[in-house]
């Protein structure tokens, strides 16, 4: 079974620039999450999708972050404009519906904002 795919793996941008991350979840997984993990901290949930609908985006900084999951499969997370404090690893995870807690994570995208 193929795992969660993310791209790019690394990205370096300057502040005020825009960036987008892509995630392809495990086939058949209805639930998709985006997390932000700052160095030395645990992952912080940004947004949760169920199919192509948003379940929770309460911790997503909506003035600069946006996410979509068209057709309930792939998802993109965008930051516009980026700030220095956005430097982090952005993790995507997916889960089958109805199963408590077993999320499958991708390798993440490491973003550096200069």
């Amino acid at each position, binding site marked *: 079974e193929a795992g969660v795919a993310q791209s790019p793996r690394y990205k370096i941008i300057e502040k005020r620039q825009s960036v987008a991350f892509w995630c392809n979840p495990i086939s058949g997984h209805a639930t998709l999450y985006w997390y932000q993990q700052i160095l030395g901290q*645990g992952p912080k949930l940004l947004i949760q999708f169920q199919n192509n609908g948003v379940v929770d985006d309460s911790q997503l900084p909506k003035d600069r972050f946006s996410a979509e999951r068209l057709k309930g499969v792939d998802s993109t997370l965008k930051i516009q404009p980026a700030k220095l404090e956005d430097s982090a690893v952005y993790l995507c995870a997916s889960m089958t519906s109805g199963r408590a807690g077993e999320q499958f*994570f991708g390798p993440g995208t490491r973003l550096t904002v200069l």
Partner: protein
Amino acid sequence: LAKTTQPISMDSYEGQEVNITCSHNNIATNDYITWYQQFPSQGPRFIIQGYKTKVTNEVASLFIPADRKSSTLSLPRVSLSDTAVYYCLVGGITGANNLFFGTGTRLTVIP
């Protein structure tokens, strides 16, 4: 949101059993307890999940007392490759209330 408290770090020698305890005093009736492992430069990986009493799989055991206000992850006979950060999460089947990772416990296995 049922937050959790874990030790920041632990050291253990190879071959020993390691027990990591997590406190979750505000756990709700429909919350499960889930543990993840994370190696550097990788996403977290699911280890084990339970609701009450004891759960065991090929990797670890999870002990949950009757009041469910804490849980203990037990790793038998650790090896150097078990050096990682271990996260305890509590939450329900759906929704975002199971998605607070905290800072985790950094386990270092010493030869």
